[in-house]
C-alpha cells in the first residue's frame, strides 16, 4: 500500500456518501459547462466589435419579429453617412423535419456580402447566388452536415411563410457555400427576390435592415435620424448599433445571461453548502482516527495537507467528468442540427475556456471546503483528538 492508496481506500470507505457527493458535483459541473458556455455566447457580441461598430440595425419598433416596408431600404440609403443598406428576414426554416432547425434568412445577395465582409464567399458562388432565382448559399459546415451538393434542389420548410399555394415547403437551389467568421454560425441564406414574390403574405416586406455607415462616430446620430423619420408612420422603427441590437434581440427571450448566472450561482451555493456540510460531518467522524495517525507519528502538516488534497480530489475529479461529458453534450447538440434557432452553439474556444474555468473553480471549491478541516487537523493536539 502506498500513501496514495491509503487516501483512495479512505475515500472509498463510505461508498454511498462518496458516490453521492461525487454525483452531485458531477451534475453541477455538467450544468456549469453547458449553461456557462451558452451564457458566454449570449453575453459576447456575435459580430466582432471592429466591424459591428460600423453597422446599425433597424427593426420594427415594438417587436423585432414584426416586418418593416422594403422601401425603407432605399429611403435610408439616401441619408448622409450611410454607405450601404441591406436587409434580412426571419424565415424560420428547417430541413425535412421541423426538429432539424436551420437559421435561414432571405437576403439581398448583392448587398449582403458587402455589408458583412466577414462572411467570405468566392466570386463564382456570389454571382451564381445573385443570378439564380431560387438560389441559396450555406456555410460549408451545414452543407457537409446534410450532405448537400452544389446544384442540389433542397426542400426548406418554413415555420412562418407559406407559398401562395399554401405549401410551407419551399425549394431552393444550393449554388455554393460561404465561410462565416465564427465557427458555429450556421445561417443559410436564401434569395430574397424569390421569397418576396412567392410568399403568401405578399411582397414588399423585410425583417430588419443592416446599415453600413461611413463613420462609427456618426452611429447614434444616424440612428436617431432614422427613428424620427418613421416615428409617425404606421411602421415605426428602432435603430441601434449591431451589438446593442443583438442584445435587445436576445432580451426578448428573457435576460438569458442573467438567468444563467442566476442558476449557476444558486447551483454553486447549494453545492458549497452540501459538500461543506458533508465534508465537515465526514471530518468529525474521523477526528479520533486522525489522532491515532498523529500518535503513530504522522506529521501535523502532512495530515492537514492530506485532508486538504482529499477535498480537492473529491471536487476536481467529478468536475473533470462533468466537464468532459458536458462538452460532449454541447458538441452533440451542435452537430445534430437541432441547435435551435435561438440557441447559438458556443464556439469551441468558449467551451474550452469554460471547461478550464470549471476545473479551476472545482479546485477552489475543494480548497474552500477542505481548508477548515485541514487547519483543524494540523492544529489539534492528540489529546484533544483522542477525546473527541
Amino acid at each position: 500500500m502506498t500513501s496514495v492508496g491509503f487516501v483512495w481506500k479512505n475515500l472509498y470507505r463510505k461508498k454511498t456518501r462518496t458516490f453521492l457527493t461525487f454525483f452531485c458535483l458531477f451534475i453541477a459541473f455538467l450544468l456549469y459547462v453547458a449553461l456557462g458556455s451558452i451564457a458566454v455566447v449570449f453575453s459576447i457580441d456575435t459580430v466582432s466589435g471592429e466591424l459591428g461598430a460600423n453597422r446599425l440595425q433597424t427593426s420594427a419598433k415594438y417587436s423585432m419579429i414584426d416586418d418593416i416596408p422594403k422601401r425603407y431600404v432605399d429611403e435610408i440609403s439616401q441619408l448622409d453617412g450611410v454607405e450601404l443598406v441591406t436587409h434580412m428576414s426571419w424565415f424560420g426554416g428547417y430541413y425535412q423535419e421541423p426538429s432539424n432547425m436551420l437559421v435561414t434568412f432571405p437576403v439581398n445577395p448583392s448587398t449582403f456580402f458587402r455589408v458583412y465582409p466577414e462572411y467570405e464567399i468566392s466570386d463564382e458562388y456570389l454571382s451564381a447566388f445573385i443570378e439564380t432565382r431560387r438560389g441559396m448559399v450555406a456555410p460549408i459546415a451545414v452543407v457537409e452536415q446534410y450532405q448537400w451538393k452544389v446544384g442540389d434542389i433542397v426542400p426548406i420548410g418554413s415555420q412562418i411563410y407559406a407559398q401562395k399555394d399554401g405549401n410551407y415547403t419551399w425549394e431552393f437551389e444550393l449554388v455554393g457555400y460561404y465561410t462565416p467568421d465564427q465557427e458555429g454560425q450556421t445561417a443559410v441564406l436564401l434569395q430574397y427576390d424569390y421569397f418576396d414574390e412567392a410568399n403568401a403574405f405578399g411582397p414588399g416586406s423585410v425583417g430588419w435592415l443592416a446599415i453600413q455607415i461611413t463613420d462609427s462616430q456618426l452611429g447614434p446620430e444616424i440612428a436617431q435620424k432614422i427613428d424620427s423619420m418613421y416615428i409617425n408612420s404606421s411602421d415605426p422603427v428602432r435603430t441601434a448599433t449591431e451589438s446593442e441590437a443583438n442584445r435587445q434581440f436576445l432580451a426578448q427571450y428573457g435576460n438569458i445571461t442573467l438567468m444563467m448566472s442566476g442558476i449557476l450561482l444558486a447551483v454553486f451555493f447549494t453545492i458549497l453548502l452540501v459538500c461543506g456540510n458533508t465534508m465537515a460531518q465526514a471530518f468529525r467522524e474521523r477526528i479520533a482516527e486522525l489522532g491515532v495517525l498523529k500518535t503513530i507519528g504522522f506529521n501535523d502538516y502532512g495530515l492537514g495537507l492530506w485532508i486538504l488534497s482529499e477535498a480537492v480530489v473529491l471536487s476536481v475529479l467529478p468536475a473533470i467528468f462533468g466537464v468532459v461529458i458536458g462538452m460532449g453534450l454541447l458538441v452533440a447538440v451542435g452537430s445534430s442540427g437541432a441547435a435551435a434557432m435561438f440557441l447559438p452553439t458556443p464556439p469551441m474556444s468558449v467551451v474550452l475556456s469554460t471547461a478550464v474555468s470549471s476545473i479551476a473553480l472545482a479546485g477552489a471549491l475543494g480548497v474552500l471546503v477542505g481548508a477548515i478541516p485541514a487547519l483543524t487537523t494540523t492544529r489539534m493536539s492528540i489529546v484533544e483528538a483522542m477525546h473527541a
Partner: protein
Amino acid sequence: MAFIELTNVVKNYEKGSEVVHVLQDLNLSLHEGDFLALMGPSGSGKSTLLNLIGGIDQPTAGSVVVDGANLDNMSGSQLAKWRSATIGFVFQFYNLLPFLTAERNVELPLLLTNLRGSQRKENALTALRTVSLEDRAKHKPGELSGGQQQRVAIARAIVADPKVLVCDEPTGDLDRQSAQEILALLETLNEQFGKTIIMVTHDPLAAEHAKTVLHLDKGVLVESEQAEVSA
C-alpha cells in the same frame, strides 16, 4: 540517567478559567527492559502520565527524558518523528482504521519509513505472525473479535521495532480469556524482545504480569512490590 527519567514533572490542564492540577512534582525512573504496571483510580492522571512518556503531550514544568531524548524542548514535528521511531502505542479500544485490512493497519507506521512496498508488507506479516494472526491478514477489524483486534493493534505497535511500548488499559475492554492472551503476549515482548513496557491497568491480575507496579493517586506515585500485590 535512567532509560526513562521524569524529573519534577508538573502537568496542569486549563479548563476555561479553571486550572486542573493533574500531576504534581512527579519523579519516575525506569531502566530499559522494565515492565511497569501503572494503577490508580479513574481520573488520577494515569493516561496523562502515559502521554508524557509517549511524547504525545508535554509537561507544564519539569523534564521528561526517554532513551536519551529530552522531550520537553522538542517541536511537534520532532516529537512526531521521534514517536514513530521509539514508541509503540496500544489503546483500550484498539483504534484500528476500520477500512483497512489487518495487514494494512499493521503496515501503517511503516509508511513513515523509507522501506520499499514489498519490504513493508513482509514486515507487517512478520509482526502479525508474532501475535499469531497471520491467517487473519486480509480481515478487516470489523471481522475480528476484540482480542484479535487488540493483537493486531499490538502488531502495529511493534512493526517499526520501537524500544518502548505504551499501553493504556490494553485489556480494559476484553473478556478474561482474551485479556490473558494479551498479557501473555506483552510479557513475551518484554522478556524475549526486550521491549520496555509501561501499561496502565485497573486489574490487579493484569498487574501481576508486570515487573514493577506503581500506584498513582492524586498526582503522586506510590511504589508497591509485585509480591505484595499477588499476596
